[in-house]
């Protein structure tokens, strides 16, 4: 797992609520058996027209979007399908964080497992950030995971919550499966304590 450190970046703003994972990566790209190439398919149907040409008004086709490592989106980002292809596509494109007022549960869990930070900020700060980007599309923010702090373009900062364990894993580069497998003794004890007659398929 890649360690997350402090970084400063421009922002791609998508002022749309309830962006679902079918928009982030359409289902027809899920026939792959690897993770390769998903960044090119990120937001495909919003990004390209029917002939496959980039739509000039879409943020990722504009200079500020191309340079951004942070996506700013509306409420309830990542709702819908559980596909982990969504954070794979976002990180392969180059995003390291998504800022919103809330995230769908499954997406949030998938994101942190791929070192993609889901940053929840209060509604007023969220609104102000959209306004700041409207005024200056090149505005930058700084993410500090250790301090759980987002420094806004005007120099002020907001703190953001993050699951304690996910934060630890991202800061230390901890492999979650390795952590689980260390608890083999507890798992084996749990299994042996359960009668076999119920809840087995054998």
């Amino acid at each position, binding site marked *: 797992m890649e360690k997350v450190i402090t970084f400063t970046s421009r922002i791609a703003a998508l002022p749309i609520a309830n962006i*679902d994972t079918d928009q982030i990566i359409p289902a027809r790209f899920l026939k792959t*058996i690897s993770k390769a190439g998903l960044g090119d398919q990120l937001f495909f149907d919003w990004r390209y027209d029917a002939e496959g040409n980039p739509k000039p008004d879409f943020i990722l086709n504009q200079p500020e979007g191309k340079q951004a490592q942070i996506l700013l989106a509306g409420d309830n980002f990542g709702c819908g399908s559980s596909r982990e292809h969504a954070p794979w596509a976002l990180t392969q494109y180059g995003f390291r964080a998504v800022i919103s007022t*809330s995230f769908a549960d499954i997406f949030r869990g998938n994101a942190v497992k791929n070192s993609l930070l889901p940053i929840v900020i209060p509604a007023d700060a969220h609104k102000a950030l959209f306004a700041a980007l409207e005024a200056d599309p090149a505005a930058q923010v700084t993410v500090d995971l250790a301090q759980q702090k987002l420094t806004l373009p005007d120099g002020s900062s907001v703190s953001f919550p993050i699951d304690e364990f996910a934060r630890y894993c991202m800061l230390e580069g901890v492999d979650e499966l390795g952590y689980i497998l260390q608890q083999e003794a507890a798992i084996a004890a749990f299994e042996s304590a359960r009668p076999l007659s*119920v809840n087995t398929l054998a």
Partner: protein
Amino acid sequence: MPQENGAGSKPRTIIEKVWDNHVVAEKPGAPALLYVDLHLVHEVTSPQAFSGLRERGLKVRRPDLTIGTTDHSIPTHNRDLPIVDKIAETQIVQFEKNCNDFGIPFYGPHSAKQGIVHVIGPEQGFTQPGMTVVCGDSHTATHGAFGALAFGIGTSQVEHVLASQCLLQTASKTFEVRVEGTLREGVGAKDIILNLISRIGIGGGNGCVFEFAGAAIRALSMEERMTVCNMSIEGGARAGLIAPDDTTYQYLAGRPYAPKGEAWERAVSLWRKLPTDAGSKYDKSIYIDAGALEPMITFGTNPGMGIGITSAVPDPSSISDPVERESLDKALRYMDLPSGKSLLGHPIDVVFIGSCTNSRISDLRAAAQIFKGRKVNPKVRVMVVPGSQQIKQQAQAEGLDTIFMEAGADWREAGCSMCIAMNGDQLRPGEYSVSTSNRNFEGRQGKGGRTFLASPLTAAASAVMGVVTDVRTLR
């Protein structure tokens, strides 16, 4: 294992009981390590997890608690011919190899038990009360109909469960959905869940598990309960469940993988301790009067954008919140719909009857009841896709296939089909469908396609009339 509540202990909901029964370990600063009783695996969200196992040299810890089937990317016709889509074929072939290499029971395209993962679990009796069930699929909540804690996971967690039979998980909040009263004629399980989602919005259940309760839920069959639980995720909740009762046990008894004989008796006595204790507290609650519901239909681009079928599509200018107003406006532009009038009479191009929401035998019977003696409107293309090969056989034994085909509908092989439109079954740009599936997101049923979500009754009635139709008015 279900445990008896000790005297004087805090009353618990079924959600808390199932959770407590599966906590393997809890360490400070980390989520609980939760044991998984049943892991369902399909071709789309698992390949990278199996690759991860191979890279680490790991085995599947409990192949006996794991089931594999192909549903998402397989064709629903001409199964005897090679798959035209070579990328999909590669995925399906790789999945079979993965199941074989790791010793996982595999129900492939030619198995008599093949079907949508959330249909075959209950059908075979794999899904049982009090279990934890996971799958790399957000509609895993379907299994909650049995009083199981069932939820979707990403591919990283698929790998975790394959390797350890456990995952790290934080307990969700509890959200009681109490549905009292009696449903009226023409109104069913799909309308209950679409109504809930339209009221709380698609993020309304974020961080929560629903418990569906009340007389109207008790009165539902198991298949109807699965329809309700299935769309918990469309309300933002990872899981939704219903306490088991005699309806549950009657459905389960005798299924191939259900306990038998003395084991069955012992299981039922434990399952009877699962329902929520009197005096339990929920973090959130909502009340729905079933008697006040009418058939529901969605008009927008998320499942929360739903209305009673006689109600008018809302007007964006009446909404004060600017982001909500813009979201609604954007949805209506995509759907190319006017606000202020109902959808009744709106022309449609396609009707899809299927998906893990509504592809069970009772759904097909409901649709057949409408199609019998009627014809599909010639302008409408109708696909009826059973949820499993066993449902297909059952429907054919009852002559439902003949009813569908005589009406002019297409009768297909089992799979996810046009719900997710990965396998070639899809809308063309600009087309409108009435669909019994679960998502109306932009492009969900095919790029540029427009989806109205509704019940099998509404879908079938609309197929006959060629326009969005209130089944209660069908002559």
